[in-house]
């Protein structure tokens, strides 16, 4: 940190970075489900700290003025907010492409109809498994899976397009073909097959989730075949766990280059996991404009571009392709967010960390640590 703070950080425009493309709006951390791989921070925000309707409307206005194209209304569970209708209506009025990312379990047909009328453009519905009991066990919510199947029908009844969000891992990866079939049966346009990414809650539960390299290869084969077979019928997005990749993912298209994320209390983050980097100070839309934050916020400028990189990133010819990988993963696994993401095969820690993960994958999975308010962890990760 010290060496960085001595020099003034370059801003977005000094890096030649344009306005962000999309806003991930975490309207609330409240959620009836307790998925142990939740992407929310381990310290969940309470209802009392959440932005008000008017504050969100102001954020939407600012996003449109900056030239953003899309908003993802997410959480937690965004439908816990009774003003979701107001927020969706406001997005439509301003011309933002509006996507609802939901577990579905709180929805009813009337509310969906209303949201559709207000201009909601797309629904992403999460699924924990295709097996009813296992899905409910993973989500920690009895009756959840059956409800989701109903919700998917209601989504199609009001002619809203549907994406099935399927998070896969060692405890459901054998149902991958069933996930794809489920998406077809539910008349979805798109299915997202995302392997668990290991930050926050998921990192605490890594041993319960991480697949073996063989399981992963098999899954990738299935997806590749389905993509060919279903071309033009079903769009399949696939995210592999980068633990087994050769190169790290170019996380968020590069830190602070394309996207921004807002948490329920109005802090603006370069990615949804950025709160796992303890030294980052986030600016808040309650105090500064979104545009100012994108341009100047230290949390963004610290890891923008390539100036901050140590070796081996600094001298790597892929440094402007993968941008050093994921800062949160570097933080979680090496203790320093500046380090090369250990997902990269060039990282000095790659073999050690991934041998450990592969070993976990070969042991019996431990019990889940469910995502709940007030869970206390004794040991730092």
């Amino acid at each position, binding site marked *: 940190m010290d060496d960085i703070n001595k020099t003034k950080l370059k801003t977005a425009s000094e890096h030649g970075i344009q306005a962000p493309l999309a806003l991930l709006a975490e309207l609330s951390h409240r959620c009836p489900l307790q998925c142990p791989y939740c992407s929310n921070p381990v310290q969940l925000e309470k209802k009392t700290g959440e932005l008000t309707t008017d504050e969100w409307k102001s954020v939407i206005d600012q996003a449109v003025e*900056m*030239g953003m*194209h*899309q908003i993802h209304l997410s959480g937690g569970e965004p439908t816990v907010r009774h003003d979701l209708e107001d927020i969706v209506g406001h997005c439509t009025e301003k011309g933002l*492409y509006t996507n609802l990312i939901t577990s579905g379990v709180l929805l009813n047909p009337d509310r969906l109809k209303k949201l559709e009328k207000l201009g909601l*453009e*797309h629904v992403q519905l999460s699924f924990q498994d295709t097996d009813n009991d296992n899905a409910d066990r993973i989500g920690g919510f009895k009756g959840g899976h059956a409800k989701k199947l109903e919700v998917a029908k209601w989504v199609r009844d009001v002619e809203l*397009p549907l994406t099935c969000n399927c998070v896969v891992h060692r405890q459901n990866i054998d149902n991958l073909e069933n996930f794809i079939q489920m998406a077809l049966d539910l008349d979805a346009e798109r299915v997202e097959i995302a392997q668990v990414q290991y930050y926050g809650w998921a990192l605490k539960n890594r041993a319960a989730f991480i697949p073996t390299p063989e399981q992963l290869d098999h899954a990738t084969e299935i997806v590749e075949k389905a993509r060919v077979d279903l071309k*033009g*019928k079903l769009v399949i997005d696939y995210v592999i766990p980068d633990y087994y990749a050769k190169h790290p993912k170019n996380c968020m298209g590069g830190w602070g280059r394309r996207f921004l994320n807002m948490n329920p209390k109005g802090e603006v983050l370069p990615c949804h996991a950025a709160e796992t980097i303890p030294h980052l100070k986030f600016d808040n839309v309650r105090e500064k404009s979104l545009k100012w934050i994108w341009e100047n916020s230290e949390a963004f400028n610290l890891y923008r571009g390539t100036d901050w990189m140590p070796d081996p990133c600094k001298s790597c010819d892929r440094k402007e392709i993968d941008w050093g990988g994921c800062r949160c993963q570097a933080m979680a696994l090496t203790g320093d967010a500046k380090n090369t993401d250990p997902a990269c095969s060039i990282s000095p820690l790659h073999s050690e960390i991934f041998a450990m993960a592969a070993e976990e994958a070969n042991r019996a999975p431990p019990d889940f640590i469910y995502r709940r308010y007030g869970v206390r962890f004794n040991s730092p990760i």
Partner: protein
Amino acid sequence: MTDILKINEKIKPKFPKHVKFRHNKARDEWVILAPERLVKLDDVAVEILKLVDGNCSVDQISQKLSKKFNAPEEVIMNDVINMLQDLSDKGFIEENG
């Protein structure tokens, strides 16, 4: 979902409900928006897509563009079909009717 669409001159293309062809005022650019997708378009694509309304056939779109840009219709039609096929394969275009 519908079966795979093969674009030909008789097809009347349209955007599926969840796909929006929009002008972004702040950026002054036309884009296609779909779930977690953003497609930036070149000027030719924008000209073609402005005529995609579910009523015009590929044939009619090509005729209009041929007149507008004073170019041979066969050449234009070829470009139109290729571009729409590409977008259709990605789920951004469907047939009306």
